[in-house]
């Protein structure tokens, strides 16, 4: 515990130390990144200690705020969430040094907010008092807002930041109501005193789902995500998409513990929202041409998979089937870590592409594999992992969710289980389509424009985090049975039983061990085949030529399949949801001079739901516009009137 508190203090100190270094971006980077790494190492040490010893540690200090107390606790769940958060914070900070290298502008603010974000995320995860939690939550939101808007000279970035700020505060409003309700009922804001008053547990769950779901990015509350994540610098996108949105998942998990025994419909709602997020997220991702926007939509998809796992876990708990509960929660929690690893890596890879080719427009890239072999390799590993392909880590967690659903098929909530399996299969297929597109069009083939021609792998400080994360994809995949068998203390408070959890985990670890063996056979056979091929070809002629292309002798890079054409059959199939707009300039006449096709896919939920609602509010408040005349005197008068009215009301 003391190590975790020390980590938070180191973050805060490093942030403050970076603040005065306005003149020297280099020193600011150094101080900021060192602080982030040292803090993260301390915190990971603390979290590992708690996971190994299995004993929760607490600290409780007085705090002169109504209802507030500095009450923190690091139990197994908190420690489990701290690992990916701090790990990615450290790696992204190292990457950030190289990524921001050479910027003329002051980086003092950037590193200040980066460390504040790290500290606040850690504090959110260990806070056990409503006021402290909301404060940390709010600091986290504001710090990430300033990180998103570092390039605020672009209008797109300002809009993205604004969307994010509005969305996150709307979510926080629901959390406020939730904590006030809980606090009123139990007379204290400390989590250990919380008890849901009879009949309101359902309402509290819905409030938590909306409030935390907004941060996590559940459909239809996801609309800020595809705006904000692409606008931020890539290492910040990695932290936001990889771990910051997971604080939303953590919030839901924590509330499930606080609220106690759930009702079955909670699980149904979670599974349904998970399915919707998963399928819609990957569908919208397919239609994107901007690499980081595509990745942001994939976060919606993966949050969907995590939520499906949580939902199955809740169903299992509500129907007293520890096997379903343990496997569902284990899948969700493991996927939380896995997604942090491969999504962090994908965003870092996208950052390297942007750094080298100065664009993220997939249609303008191509052939980067030859120029950036290391970025290409790590991106490929992450792409295969996010598609849930064995033997990498993504498969391990999806396998757990599958196993939970398979156990639930024979139970009383078979519909949810079958829906989850069908959705996982469809998501798997569409994700494969999306990442063959993202990887294939960007890294393979020939460069489509000049922009990628001079690209090369990034500097050492950017390569090390990428390689580390890629190695983690492989290692977590190969050690998944061990990790899962060690997760029992984390699952116990969620499932409400230890014996059932242990039984379920032992069963599944056997299956997962077989999966690992299958992975080793795969690699062994592939190596054997490659050696066999090499032996066959050793004494024979091996030629090099142009791509055959059915005999066409003068291929150009523009003849290659583009990202839009690759995804077109699928996006057309789902046109009713995606509403892709096409701008076609058809070839005309006998000797057509030019033709073009542009497609654009806005978020159907932004356009169809949120924009009308916000425009409606906008019009309503425009009627009050006469109050805001722009004169300071008038405003002071308003304040005075308000005070007098309040005074009279109080005295009367």
């Amino acid at each position: 515990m003391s190590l975790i508190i020390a980590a938070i203090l180191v973050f805060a100190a490093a942030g403050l130390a970076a603040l005065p270094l306005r003149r020297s971006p280099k020193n600011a980077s150094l101080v900021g990144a060192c602080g982030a790494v040292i803090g993260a190492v301390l915190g990971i040490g603390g979290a590992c200690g708690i996971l190994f010893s299995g004993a929760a540690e607490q600290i409780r200090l007085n705090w002169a705020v109504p209802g507030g107390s500095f009450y923190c606790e690091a139990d197994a769940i908190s420690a489990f969430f701290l690992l990916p958060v701090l790990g990615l914070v450290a790696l992204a900070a190292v990457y950030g040094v190289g990524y921001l290298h050479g910027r003329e502008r002051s980086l003092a603010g950037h590193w200040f907010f980066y460390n504040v974000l790290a500290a606040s995320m850690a504090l959110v995860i260990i806070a056990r008092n409503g006021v402290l939690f909301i404060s940390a939550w709010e600091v986290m939101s504001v710090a990430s807002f300033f990180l998103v808007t570092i390039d605020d000279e672009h209008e797109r970035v300002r809009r993205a930041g604004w969307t994010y700020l509005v969305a996150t505060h709307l979510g926080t409003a629901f959390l406020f109501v939730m904590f006030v309700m809980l606090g009123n009922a139990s007379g204290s804001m400390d989590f250990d005193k919380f008890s849901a008053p009879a009949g309101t547990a359902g309402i509290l769950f819905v409030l938590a789902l909306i409030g935390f779901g907004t941060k996590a990015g559940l459909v239809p509350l996801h609309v800020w995500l595809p705006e904000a994540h692409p606008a931020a610098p890539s290492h910040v996108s990695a932290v936001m998409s990889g771990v910051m949105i997971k604080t939303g998942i953590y919030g839901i998990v924590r509330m499930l513990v606080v609220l106690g025994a759930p009702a079955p419909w909670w699980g149904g709602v979670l599974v349904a929202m998970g399915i919707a997020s998963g399928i819609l997220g990957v569908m919208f991702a397919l239609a994107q041409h901007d690499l980081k926007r595509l990745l942001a939509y994939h976060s919606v998809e993966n949050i969907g998979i995590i939520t499906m796992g949580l939902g199955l876990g809740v169903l299992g708990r509500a129907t007293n089937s520890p096997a379903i509960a343990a496997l569902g929660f284990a899948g969700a929690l493991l996927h939380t870590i896995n997604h942090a690893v491969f999504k962090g890596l994908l965003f870092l890879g996208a950052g390297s592409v942007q750094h080298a080719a100065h664009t993220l427009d997939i249609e303008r890239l191509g052939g980067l594999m030859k120029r950036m072999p290391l970025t290409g390799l790590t991106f490929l590993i992450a792409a295969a992992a996010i598609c849930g392909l064995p033997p990498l880590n993504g498969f391990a967690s999806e396998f757990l969710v599958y196993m939970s659903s398979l156990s639930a098929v024979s139970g009383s909530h078979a519909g949810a289980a079958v829906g989850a399996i069908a959705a996982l299969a469809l998501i798997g297929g569409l994700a494969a389509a999306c990442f063959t597109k993202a990887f294939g069009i960007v890294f393979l083939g020939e460069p489509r424009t000049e922009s990628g021609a001079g690209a090369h792998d990034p500097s050492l400080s950017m390569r090390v985090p990428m390689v580390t994360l890629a190695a983690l994809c492989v290692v977590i995949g190969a050690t998944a049975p061990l990790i899962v068998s060690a997760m029992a203390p984390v699952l116990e408070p969620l499932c409400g039983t230890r014996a059932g959890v242990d039984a379920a985990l032992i069963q599944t670890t056997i299956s997962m061990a077989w999966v690992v063996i299958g992975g080793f056979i795969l690699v062994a056979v592939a190596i054997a085949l490659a050696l066999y091929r090499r032996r066959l070809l050793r004494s024979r002629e091996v030629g090099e030529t142009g791509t055959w292309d059915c005999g066409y002798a003068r291929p150009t890079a523009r003849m290659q399949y583009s990202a839009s054409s690759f995804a077109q059959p699928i996006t057309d199939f789902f046109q009713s949801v995606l509403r892709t707009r096409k701008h076609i300039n058809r070839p005309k006449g006998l000797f057509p001079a030019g033709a073009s096709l542009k497609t654009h896919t806005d978020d159907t939920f932004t356009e169809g739901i949120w924009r009308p609602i916000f425009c409606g509010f906008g019009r309503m408040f425009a009627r009050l516009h006469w109050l805001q005349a722009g004169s300071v005197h008038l405003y002071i008068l308003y304040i005075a009137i308000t005070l007098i009215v309040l005074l009279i009301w109080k005295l009367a």
Partner: protein
Amino acid sequence: MPTILATLIRFMLTLALAPLLLGVINRTKAVMAGRKGQPILQPYYDLAKLLGKGAVYSRTTTWVFRLGPVGTLAAVFVASLIAPWGGLGAPVSFAGDFILMAYMLGLARFLTVIAALDTGSAFEGMGASREVYFSALAEPTLLISLIALARLGGSISLSTIYAGLTPNVWAAAGPALLLIVAALLVVVLAENARIPVDDPTTHLELTMIHEVMVLDHGGPDFAMIGYGAALKLWTLLALLAGLILPHTGRTLIDAGAFLGVMFALAIVIGLIESTMARLRLVRVPQMLLGAGALAVLAILLALR
């Protein structure tokens, strides 16, 4: 020990006989068309010839292109380790093994697709795009069919499920099993690039899916792709064959029956290919969704 040996022998037979399925399909088509047709062992001759050739690689390609055939065959190999011989067990079986099987086939597809994109060819991009589209729609059907089976067979491991599919189960849940047979047949045809989804014989690249993705491969690489395709056909066909098998409980007879049904199914595929035209590409998703609907219906019947 004898069981392990028997399992091993069966797996060796799987590896040896998989290309013969293609030979039987081709011979069936030839007979239906009134031709004499190629020798039934032609797929083996083709593989031997390709293994004896050199290779030509495009200058555009990278190591991804060379990884494609090797990785694809390795992934299909692992999937085929899980495929049971009807009621006789597979070399590898564990709870949830069919998920690994489906995802290994997914990995094989992923590697084939990126190898195709590595050539920078418009044709291969087109094939890759269609492949990922159709397989994304076929994947849920496969898994829903298998969980319906799991429910009927009372297990979540393929070998145990198929061992439990006795005539009694057919008597009790005949309609559901029939629906699963139909859905799995469509999946087999779609996943193995057969008519009516894809045409393995056409020379018009524009109409092809799988064949067009591997245009640039040659020599030993192409042999691995061809063998991988045969092994994948065997693996998925085995799921279908196991459904319509009698169970005698005597290993030799059961194994013989399994092989008989496998090759009978190959003849059925040949007949389908002889009597049908390839569907227009826009119709394929409708067929795949139709199969998905059958699978959902099957699971509703199974859950009843």
